[in-house]
């Protein structure tokens, strides 16, 4: 099939057309990421850019791969693919009926080493969201990957973050900030019907389950916990 990196002659389009398509896809990714503040972009949206004008079936995959390469070589961004691996229970029945749904989505992640990123690239005006993200994901992870909404808010309250607070000095509307995490696919919401009616659960979603992210979070949690336990020993 498609020979990686080179042979697009099978697609019957010129190099210029191919380049143009790749550029369009990259631009789409960059602008869309800005517009939706880092929420994953569905693969379908990218494919559509290609299939809008060209019919060849495996062309979208080829173009997306090329875009991935270019994003890395020009910007140092990785186009990371997220897979919707764990459908929430409410979606179970629907998904089983849809066969062959391309549930892949993409985010761009900087490939720079962490120290470099932190020192030069990171926008200090958005680091509060990063901090919030880390805290929430850690809580959910420590709870086993899934936590009841009430329980989560209980923990957040201990840090001064209340569900009803719309004017937090740093986060603004705290509930909305949490919603943002759902949209960015760090968390997913789940309604579980129990004896007392439906309870809302938050579960880790693709972005938080992704290998490197998951690992690092565990590391950081360990660091924090270790620090605390040593101080306890001393006292």
């Amino acid at each position, binding site marked *: 099939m498609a020979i990686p990196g080179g042979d697009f002659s099978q697609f019957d389009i010129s190099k210029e057309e191919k380049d143009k398509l790749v550029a369009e896809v990259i631009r789409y990714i960059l602008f*869309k990421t*800005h517009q939706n503040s880092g929420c994953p972009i569905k693969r379908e949206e990218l494919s559509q850019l290609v299939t809008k004008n060209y019919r060849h079936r495996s062309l979208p995959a080829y173009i997306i791969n090329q875009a991935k390469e270019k994003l890395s*070589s020009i910007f*140092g961004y990785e186009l990371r693919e997220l897979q919707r691996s764990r459908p929430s229970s409410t979606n179970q029945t629907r998904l089983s009926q849809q066969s062959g749904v391309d549930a892949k989505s993409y985010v761009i992640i900087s*490939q*720079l080493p962490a120290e470099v990123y932190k020192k030069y*690239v990171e926008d200090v005006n958005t680091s509060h969201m990063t901090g919030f993200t880390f805290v929430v994901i850690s809580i959910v992870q420590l709870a086993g990957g899934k936590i009841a909404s009430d329980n989560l808010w209980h923990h957040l309250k201990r840090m001064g973050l209340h569900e009803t607070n719309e004017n937090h000095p740093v986060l603004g509307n705290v509930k909305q900030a949490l919603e943002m995490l759902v949209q960015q696919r760090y968390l997913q919401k789940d309604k579980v019907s129990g004896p007392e009616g439906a309870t809302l659960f938050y579960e880790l979603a693709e972005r938080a389950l992704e290998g490197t992210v998951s690992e690092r979070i565990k590391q950081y949690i360990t660091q924090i916990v270790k620090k605390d336990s040593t101080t306890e020993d001393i006292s």
Partner: protein
Amino acid sequence: MAVLSWKHHTLIQTLLERGPLLEKDFHSIFTAITGQNPGTHQGKFNDYLLKINRELSYLQLDLRACRDPYDGRVYYGVVNNVSDEQSKLGTKYSVPQIAFFKAIVEAIAQDVTAVGCICNMDALNIKLENQVLNNSGSQSQDGSLGIPAAFRNFTMSQKEKTIDQLVIDKWLCYTEDDNIGVGVRSVLDLRSWFHNAGVPSCEVCNEAGLKARSCPNEGCTVRIHQYCLKTKFSQKGVIVCPSCDTQWQYQPPKAEPLELEDEETEVMQSQPSSQPLQSQVQSSLRSRRKRERVGRNDDADTVGCDTRRVTRQSAHLR
């Protein structure tokens, strides 16, 4: 086949993440990453930028520099050159907000006195309905039918919030006397728009003369930026219009409250070179002027609402 290294990537990513950066901040990042100061190793700096732009041009993007019209400071940013379907997505602003922004920029651009800003009240009084009528070109039979509800219902407080957000994002800025001026992003991004809208360009640097001195000769349309005047005429001390030879007053006693003070003469020390900085980095940068040493330490935090335009030795006074 990596043309760009992680150092190039860092420079690009920092501009993308943090928005337009002051020259000194951009330079200090460059120095920190490459170990070489752009001031002393200009060739290397230009080399880097050229390389970056070669790659970016594939995507119709550009890394370029521009001057803040109000204080003459240089900023670097990554700019989009083509308005296509994809770039139209690249905004979090709603349609009425964008129309409002456009109206403000138009008002500033079309100001014949080249003051470069409009007062807050005027901005808030802009009626979006006029924008729609202007755009459609023809009058609809019933004026209100052609205007989307969102435009009609754009309240005063929404306008205020929009202005605040635009200032934070650097599309607009607050000038010293609480007026609204164009922000650095607009200067970077809307360059071609200003040219097309007929804003006279500065004779010296050929950038849009939004806030500039006009030739006192009524018939002459020459405009020159305040900071460009200094570079061109600093040694001579007398300003003569390049086109009509009228003498310009060095300290014009204009009635407007936005005027220069005597501090001008103190500022001369910070500009050793005699040539203007071109905004297209791709074209060869000639000798660069030293930036004024701005008092505060901006290293960590360049982003954010820069509403404090205190005149220290800032080159650009009103």
